């Protein structure tokens, strides 16, 4: 499961190799719904890769497999963790949790927050988990919420009653505050107005400058063209489609095997 460190690892903190995913619906006569197969790509530090293709093609499923939230059926998802590469497909739960704390951040499409926890603490929580001092984390969370134009009167309230756009901004603050070398973004700008979309574009640019590798789904073509460095067309991984594996990512993976 653990591979030795190499210089490739620092520049390629995430390598997805020959990943397959299908869902078996046991309650509906065990039919199998194929999602993707032969998923191969490599994320580079300081780049933002965009998952492209029509909805329903499996973009979110790929993000969720990388985060360990969905189980891949086959293949490897190698993520750099401290001095080694960890395969998320076979990692045990506590290893996946450690990777989520230190390596992979995730801005999900919808906020899932603890009841009764104020917005500012929801935003600060992932940073505190990384070991940041609570008061410093709260200050950083406040600054980030202000940058995202969330009114200060909402900071001490639990986000459950917020509008979709307000919840999404708490979610974005939470995800962008941390120091994760890999950041997954599931339509972070979907429910935002133009001004806040610009803020998020700025945040993504800063992450790229810091050497973070980003992988995102953006339905907004303007956002895509502003921050996307590489487009990964997911329709070529959709099952029954032709498998076109990039020879470059193949050779990178060979370095680890």
């Amino acid at each position, binding site marked *: 499961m653990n591979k030795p460190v190499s210089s490739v690892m620092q520049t390629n903190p995430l390598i997805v190799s020959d990943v397959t995913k299908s869902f078996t*619906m046991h*309650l509906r006569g065990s039919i199998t719904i194929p999602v993707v197969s032969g998923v191969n790509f490599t994320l580079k530090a300081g780049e933002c890769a965009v998952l492209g293709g029509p909805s329903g093609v499996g973009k979110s499923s790929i993000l969720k497999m990388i985060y360990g*939230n969905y189980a891949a059926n086959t293949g490897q998802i190698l993520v750099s963790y401290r001095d080694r590469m960890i395969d998320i497909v076979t990692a045990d*739960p506590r290893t996946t949790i450690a990777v989520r704390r230190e390596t992979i951040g995730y801005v999900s499409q919808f906020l899932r927050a603890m009841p*009764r926890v104020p917005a500012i603490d929801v935003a600060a929580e992932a940073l505190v988990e990384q070991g940041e001092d609570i008061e410093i984390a709260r200050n950083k969370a406040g600054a980030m919420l202000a940058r995202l134009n969330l009114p200060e009167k909402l900071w001490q309230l639990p986000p459950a009653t917020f509008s979709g756009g307000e919840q999404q901004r708490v979610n974005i603050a939470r995800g962008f505050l941390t120091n994760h070398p890999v950041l997954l973004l599931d339509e972070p700008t979907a429910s935002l107005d133009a001004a806040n979309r610009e803020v998020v574009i700025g945040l993504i640019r800063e992450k790229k400058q810091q050497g973070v590798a980003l992988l995102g789904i953006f339905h907004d073509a303007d956002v895509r063209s502003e921050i996307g460095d590489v487009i990964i067309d997911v329709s070529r991984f959709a099952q029954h489609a032709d498998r076109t594996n990039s020879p470059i990512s193949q050779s990178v993976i060979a370095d680890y095997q």
Partner: protein
Amino acid sequence: MTINQDADCLRDATLVPHRQMDLEEQPLLQVRSVSKYYGRRIGCEEISFDLWPGEVLAIVGESGSGKTTLLNCISTRLTPTSGMVNYRMRDGSMREVFRLTEAEKRFLMRTDWGFVHQNPADGLRMSVSAGANVGERLMAIGKRHYGDIRQTASDWLEQVEIDKDRIDDQPRAFSGGMRQRLQIARNLVTGPRLIFMDEPTGGLDVSVQARLLDLLRGLVAELGLAAIIVTHDLAVARLLSHRMVVMKEGRVIETGLTDRVLDDPQAPYTQLLISSILQV
């Protein structure tokens, strides 16, 4: 207490420094092929798993699935028909819990382990004061100074959000949620490393449940406690646990990272269980 004070108190309980899990650590508890039969009926069968320091494991399943039997077998409240439970003592040695000396067993039950019952009356002494309920576990481990014990008890009441001036009241004068928080204080006062909980939020109103979940989540993260929580409530499992074991008819059906099991269930029974949740 005003609403504002309540919110402040809550805020401190929810955002706490996290004791970091260390991947190099050794397991705290090893459960190996534990089976319990009641005559010919299966209580639980061939259950094996490891638990690491700081890890929260949820055991879920419908009533009669064997989850409480399993919890009782691991915590030595029941003797398994076969199988082994190993626990890492504070000196680092791994010991079989059913072969400990009486003194070692007492140390586990009174100090290093806690057990939170679904019904607080099963875990509290209802006719002595709240302070004495918390202080009793301290006296059991040799603390004798009355002032120190009272001070520690009072600090713990504060930690679980019970007003300090209720220290001399009996738990029978407390609401269900307060009793449950008192039971938690009584268990945590000795600085245990492992807590067993049987439906800790069962029978509580949802608002009281949310407050308790909040409190438990904060305490577990701050103290780096390992916990095994039996619950039939999948939402409780999602909020509190890192890892989940799904049981049916005494056997393990599926196990894995909690959000993975809930969002991408693999076994037919787990899919049925999750698809049966009412959405609100």
